């Protein structure tokens, strides 16, 4: 439901606005070509699938309680991703812009904090390692 091993088409996700929505804030996490100063060739995303679905479900329910007027969509891709591929997509539709930003930001922050998904960076030389965000700056 929230996880997919098929490419995420960012554009097609934006179409679901209700006529009462005035603001749409979205965030797309994209595979980039570097991490902590090293070049990245691709990234393998692994999940504890059933638990990840459940955790994202809890996050979405929590957002609906905190921002009842705001509708939030979440998609997270798993499997082998190339540079430029969308790894995670959040779209938050709301009557007002402040709420759309707040719910979108909360969604991605909470997903990164608790959903059991891991990523293994694969470098151009074929070496790879699991990413450990707890050893990095919080903005990364």
């Amino acid at each position, binding site marked *: 439901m929230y996880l997919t091993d098929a490419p995420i088409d960012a554009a097609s996700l934006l179409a679901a606005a209700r006529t009462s929505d005035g603001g749409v804030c979205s965030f797309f*996490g994209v595979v980039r070509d570097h991490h902590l100063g090293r070049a990245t060739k691709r990234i393998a*995303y*692994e*999940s*504890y699938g*059933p*638990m*990840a679905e*459940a955790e994202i479900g809890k996050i979405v329910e929590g957002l609906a309680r905190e921002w009842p007027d705001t509708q939030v969509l979440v998609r*997270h891709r798993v499997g082998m991703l190339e540079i430029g591929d969308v*790894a*995670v997509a959040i779209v938050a539709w709301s009557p007002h812009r402040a709420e759309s930003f707040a719910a979108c930001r909360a969604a*991605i922050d909470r*997903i*990164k*904090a*608790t*959903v*059991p*998904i*891991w*990523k*293994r960076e694969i470098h151009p030389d074929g070496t790879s390692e*699991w*990413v*450990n*965000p*707890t*050893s990095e700056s919080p903005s990364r």
Partner: protein
Amino acid sequence: MRIRLLYFATFRDVSGRDSEERQVAGGSKVSDLWRELTGEMPGLLRTGSMPPAAVNREYTGPDTVLAEGDEVAFLPPVAGG
């Protein structure tokens, strides 16, 4: 009693397996299981103290008592998004 243990990411690399069925003593807590596992596989300790644990796909604390048939996973630092 029997539980099912799942390994992900670095923990799978260390243990060399995705999952296993395992016998644990009745009344064992999550923290007891972690102590047992790190005794067998000190490489699990690379992430420092006991990592977040899930029992039956829900986060739980170290004092949770395990039950027959539980699905248990210790989770390396997550990195979604």
